[in-house]
């Protein structure tokens, strides 16, 4: 069975259009034939193979995308040479004007292509088409190109035009408009609103600062493209180990909290009647398993984390990732319940031991008083909605994703962590 037609169309659509565009211009030659043969090979593989992953792997292994683009460049290059000045060896005003016109036409085509691409994107985005105006800063690049076209149309010669591109830095302005300060600010604002961890914010801050620094060093306020790209890569590289370690330690205290809650709640009288036990085939037996097995699992988990990071179960909660998640309302449980679990339940959660009656009573009361859940657990969504509305219009978040419901909880809001 061939590879799914919709996937193949998405993968090969651009290449089919490129070949058709060359045919429409009546272009021919060896490279044109090679383009057609390369596309035919891609189409043939799509029919012969059935697995999408294997298909895209084969296309890359045979270098078919690369070969197609290579021949396409040569076809266009040959076509441009044919329309260039005659090979008479005379460089006169007519030849000069022709060269300038060819260059300006290429820029005009580019503007058209950018506009067409944006129109296509907007069509794909349907009712959210206006988002494209926020996310794709095509005006910046179009303005830069139109500035070049205006210069070319001002009556100057081709060499003067080329010289002015360098003198005014317009060639660099064109290069640097791919990544803009505005798009980096958007990513930083998104990272701050999400507040997943401090490194993700730091990364975006550093990229924006880098952009500003390199732009300030440039004649036209545009960073050197290659330097910006490599320095951004270095920023990612620097912070990646910290992010991985942060998340792994967070996993340590998250899983510990999960088991502490399971263990103490399993001793509450209502345990067989609430989730997760109520969903079991034999709820009472499931409760018994939680009571008997959780301490053993928790202590092996503690041993694993101690081996990894030299941290005891209690010390996992003293890691900055815990305070961070508390501050940004990522923790599902309320502060009083977490303090109860960590300070009072954790020390006695030991294999083959049971919690004291008073601890069970506290857990039951917190449950019955509805004080276990963080009352501000909806804050991350509100925070993100504020960011989203600031870019896509007031009220837009609710319109698209619905109203953010406040959780029903009688617990007090989280304050500074006290473990």
């Amino acid at each position, binding site marked *: 069975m061939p590879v799914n037609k919709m996937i193949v169309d998405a993968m090969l659509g651009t290449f089919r259009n490129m070949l058709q565009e060359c045919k429409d211009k009546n272009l021919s030659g060896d490279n044109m034939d090679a383009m057609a043969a390369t596309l035919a090979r891609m189409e043939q593989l799509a029919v012969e193979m059935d*697995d999408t*992953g*294997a298909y*895209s*792997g*084969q296309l*890359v*292994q045979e*270098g078919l*995308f*690369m070969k197609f*683009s*290579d021949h396409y*460049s*040569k076809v266009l*290059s040959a076509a441009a040479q044919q329309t260039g000045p005659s090979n008479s*060896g*005379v*460089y006169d*005003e007519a030849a*000069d004007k022709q060269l300038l016109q060819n260059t300006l036409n290429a820029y005009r085509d580019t503007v058209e292509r950018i506009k067409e691409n944006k129109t296509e994107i907007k069509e794909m985005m349907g009712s959210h088409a206006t988002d494209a105006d926020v996310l794709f800063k095509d005006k910046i690049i179009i303005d830069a190109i139109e500035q070049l076209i205006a210069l070319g149309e001002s009556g100057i*010669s081709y*060499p*003067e035009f*080329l*010289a002015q591109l*360098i*003198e005014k830095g317009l060639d660099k302005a064109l290069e640097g408009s791919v990544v803009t300060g505005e798009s980096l600010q958007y990513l930083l604002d998104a990272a701050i609103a999400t507040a997943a961890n401090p490194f993700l914010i730091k990364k975006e801050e550093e990229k924006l600062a880098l952009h500003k620094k390199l732009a300030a060093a440039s004649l036209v306020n545009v960073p050197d493209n*290659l330097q910006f790209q*490599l320095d951004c*890569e*270095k920023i990612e*590289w620097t912070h*990646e*180990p910290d992010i*991985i*370690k942060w998340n*792994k330690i967070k996993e340590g205290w998250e899983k510990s909290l999960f088991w502490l809650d399971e263990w103490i709640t399993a001793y509450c009288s209502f345990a067989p009647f609430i989730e997760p036990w109520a969903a079991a085939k034999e709820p009472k037996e499931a409760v018994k*398993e939680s009571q*008997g*097995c959780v*301490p*053993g*699992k928790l*202590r*092996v*988990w503690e*041993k*694993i984390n101690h*081996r*990894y*990071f030299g941290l005891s179960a209690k010390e996992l909660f003293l890691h900055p990732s815990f305070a961070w998640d508390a501050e940004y309302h990522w923790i599902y449980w309320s502060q009083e319940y977490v303090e109860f679990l960590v300070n009072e339940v954790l020390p006695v959660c030991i*294999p*083959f031991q049971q919690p004291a009656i008073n601890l069970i009573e506290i857990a039951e009361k917190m449950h019955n008083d509805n004080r276990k859940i963080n009352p501000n657990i909806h804050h991350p969504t509100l925070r993100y909605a504020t960011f989203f509305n600031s870019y896509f219009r007031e009220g837009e978040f609710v319109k698209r994703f619905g109203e953010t419901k406040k959780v029903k909880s009688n617990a007090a809001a989280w304050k500074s962590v006290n473990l």
Partner: protein
Amino acid sequence: MINYLEAYKQYYFLRMKQREGNVDYNNTYTAEKNLFDIISSCTKLEEFKDKIGNANEQVALALVTDEQNIRLRHYEEIKETVKAACCRRILDKVKKCNNVSEVISMVNEEQNLSNIEITTDTIYPFADMLFLENIEIWEQADIPSEYKERYAAYANEERAGIKKAYASIEKEMNNWQPGWKFNFERIDEERHRRLLPYSNEVIAAQIKSTQQILNK
């Protein structure tokens, strides 16, 4: 009346000056200077056409050389050896290229190869310790005896999960590189090792456990 020769001299002068004093673009500057020297020696624009030879193409080759050297230094500094290898191959091959068209094809080919190398340079699923952690929990937890058999079965399910995950990555990578096999030695290479926040002893033990499960 425009003096085209003088206008072009000015243009090539500006191109040369752009790179002057920039040590990162030394080859480009030399090639640009050669081009400027050629046009400076002309008394008529027509002469330039006869004298230029492939000096213009040499600028493009020099620019590729300089940019790849910048990339190479960057990847060497951060010990990204797979990406650095691509730069070295381009730098080696660009010396043998005679024109821009050859350079473009060569760079595209090398980048295509590099993309495959980057994709297949993976230590997944080893980086995800979840399976091994679960096995340890199921097997080592102090639990009442009536649950031991069930927990041992859970541990075996995790073992099967590990085998499945390694078989799956091997199948996936073979789409990109036929004959690809998971390479445990790769784990200790700096670019992968720095992303595993554990001691050498922990890593060595995890490798041993995984190899035992996979019978490797």
